[in-house]
């Protein structure tokens, strides 16, 4: 049987030769992301900001977003944003929370606003979904999201710290930061809604990206023991070449699954799937280039070998 072959066997790609370009590329990407994040900010959804969302679908034919925008603008409800959602018949209406700053609950002002919107369009649209998040709950969700990200990243770091010698740990963590920051940058650049699902995607990306790095680093560590005379670049190039086929295969299967979610899973999952797709691409790239490039800068064979081992492995004769 002729099998699909992504790469020939016994590759030895000199990955580290592209190190300069990749470093510049990554530095620009990270810097750009941070700048965008600081200047433009994130299009936070009602999960984090409070307010309400109404998803509507026309009873028949395509939705006229412009007309709808004008009509709803006349209701004087403040900041309203409309967006085609999934198909041309569906529209997502986002309205800021009414009565400034005090909208911790579904107070009369908010209730009226929702009713106004619903009544205005009831003759032509079916209400598919209504969501309201009060300002206090929004603050809590934002705080919880922040804590969850910090706790997850922290636990991943602790794990990496125990699992690997410190040069590996630092490289893996920097690569992880690279992935998270550029994903946030992507959301800032595209203005796609940043909500709870996005945070879920961020954490999953963190898990995925570190997973990739761990597999490569495991191999580098093996090869360091196996080929005592090789220099860093040779070791890293060989290890990357040995794992590249697995790295690509896994990225492709994950991408297949994600593309299926993106195209068929409905508009609600769109932002999530997009974040994940980006995360898988950038995670794959960063495991190869960011993590390994940083690692190659360290002295991986200090004269006293034991210095590099985490304490718990020092007395183990096998290591």
């Amino acid at each position: 049987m002729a099998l699909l072959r992504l790469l020939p066997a016994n590759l030895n790609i000199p990955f580290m030769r592209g190190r300069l370009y990749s470093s510049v590329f990554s530095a620009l990407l990270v810097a750009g992301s941070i700048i965008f994040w600081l200047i433009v900010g994130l299009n936070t959804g009602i999960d984090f900001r409070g307010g309400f969302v109404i998803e509507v679908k026309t009873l028949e034919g395509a939705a006229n977003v412009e007309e709808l925008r004008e009509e709803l603008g006349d209701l004087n409800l403040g900041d309203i944003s409309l967006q085609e959602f999934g198909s041309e018949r569906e529209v997502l209406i986002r309205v800021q929370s009414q009565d400034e700053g005090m909208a911790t609950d579904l107070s009369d002002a908010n209730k009226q606003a929702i009713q106004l919107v619903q009544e205005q369009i009831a003759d032509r649209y079916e209400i598919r979904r209504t969501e309201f998040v009060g300002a206090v709950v929004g603050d809590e969700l934002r705080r919880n999201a922040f804590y969850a990200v910090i706790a997850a990243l922290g636990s991943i770091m602790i794990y990496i710290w125990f699992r690997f010698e410190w040069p590996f740990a630092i490289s893996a963590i920097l690569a992880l930061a690279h992935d998270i920051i550029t994903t946030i940058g992507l959301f800032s650049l595209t203005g796609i809604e940043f909500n709870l699902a996005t945070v879920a995607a961020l954490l999953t990306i963190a898990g995925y990206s570190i997973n990739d790095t761990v597999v490569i680093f495991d191999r580098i560590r093996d090869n360091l023991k196996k080929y005592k005379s090789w220099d860093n670049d040779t070791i890293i190039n060989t290890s990357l070449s040995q794992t590249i086929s697995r790295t690509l295969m896994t990225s492709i299967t994950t991408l297949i699954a994600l593309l299926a979610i993106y195209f068929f899973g409905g508009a609600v999952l769109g932002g999530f799937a997009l974040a994940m797709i980006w995360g898988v691409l950038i995670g794959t790239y960063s495991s190869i280039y960011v993590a390994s490039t940083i690692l190659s800068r360290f002295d991986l064979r200090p004269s006293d070998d034991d210095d590099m081992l985490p304490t718990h492995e020092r007395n183990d004769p096998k290591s």
Partner: protein
Amino acid sequence: MIRLSTWFYNLTILVVVIAASVAVSTVVLRDDDGGGIGVNLGLDLQGGSYLLLEVDMDSVVQERMDNLGETIRISMRNSRIGISNLSVNSDRLSFQLRDELQFIEARDILNGLIAPEMRVTISENTLSVAFDETGLSQLTTMTVGQAIEIVRARVDETGTKEPVIQRQGNNRILLQLPGVDDPEQVKSLLGKTAKIGFQLVDISASAESVKASGRVPPGSELLPSRDNPDEHYLLNKRVMVSGEMLEDARPSFDGQTNEAVVSFTLNSTGAERFGRVTGQNIGRPFAIVLDNEVISAPVIRSQIFANGQISGGFSVDETNELSLLLRSGALPAPLLVVEERSVGPGLGSDSVRAGQVASIVGLAGVALFMISSYGMIGCLAVIAVFINMLLLYGQLSILGATLTLPGIAGIVLTIGMAVDANIIIFERIKEELRAGRKLATAFKTGFNQATGTIIDANLTTLAAALFLYFLGSGPVKGFSVTISVGVISSMFSTIIVMRVLLAIWINTIKPESILISKQDIGAN
């Protein structure tokens, strides 16, 4: 020939069979209305409403303090202790003594009046009262508990199928209403505390003159009419008969006017009191007050005992709602809707379909790719993925998990990521074979070496998913659950099930080589 110990073999098969039968039986045995064990569809898939209600403790505290202030005023007056500046500032009540010499006496009286969970603080000649922290949290726990009971009573009567009502955090109530995509009716039921009381109208002064002068006689209060907020009634503050004395309330029609009314029955205490008050006050108007609004103030024509009716120009719907509210009792505090998410049945079923399509396309795509990359062994990996799905579904059923749209995304993602472990193993075996090892040796080393890597790699994903669980509201929690369960079952299905499958296959087919063509052998 690959040898695996018999127990390893049998145990694996046993686990797979159990998982498969659980998965199948939950699908087959499920009742039509979705009862029984098994995976439940989340509100985003079946349509329904999610409401997060906050019990407004501030107003409870405020009310308790206001009442306490009234009692203090009366008691101090009766004991001839002069006080001034009695004020309630949100959660703190304070007043000053005119004569410092009465200090000890005043303190003793105050200590006798306050509830055990309150504390008195004293500075110079000012006495203040506030709840202490544990007292306040006890009060909150109790109030939320009562509120939950009443919410349950009110929601159950609306005929919502299997509503979920639970306490969340300190002072919140989570309400999930499957199948209710427009929660307006429920919200309107929960938006009223429904505190009802019968109070005599104060006929010593007219409401208009009191309103104009702004001087309310002591012991009386001015309340607006429900129909017309500009119209007021002057009532005796004392509630003669209150909502707790109601035994039943039903919507009905007045025999003479055919007007929609609410008929009520009082319990024995209530009936006795009602009889006494009505007997003594014939000819005087008696007001029915609901949530500080006067519904009506009919003139007492004759002595009434247990049965009466409330009329006030109601529509039939209003009498239905009012009688339900009266039956369920008054909420101990107002409830505020702080979060609401409702999904219509249309979007729900679209999402289910989208989830199904995404799963099938994802699974098919991954299967196709695996088979075209690894041939027969790829087929085995696909079988392992199917077994993984069975295990996943079995675990979700046993956990009674709720499947949400992000949860489905988690499953699809698990499909994509689960084959990763297979790939790690295959690539390892390939390398061993290329290095010239025999099939059996390559099989063994491949699995052993890959196992460590697989566990490492999956633990990080598991950590991220677990933290997500604590972050999330409903749908995101669903994602965290399916990813976590998926990671665990995919580790099992690769490290253990795949080993058995591959061993069976190699032992049956007895191929010369797997995964690589013969010319690759020893090329390294």
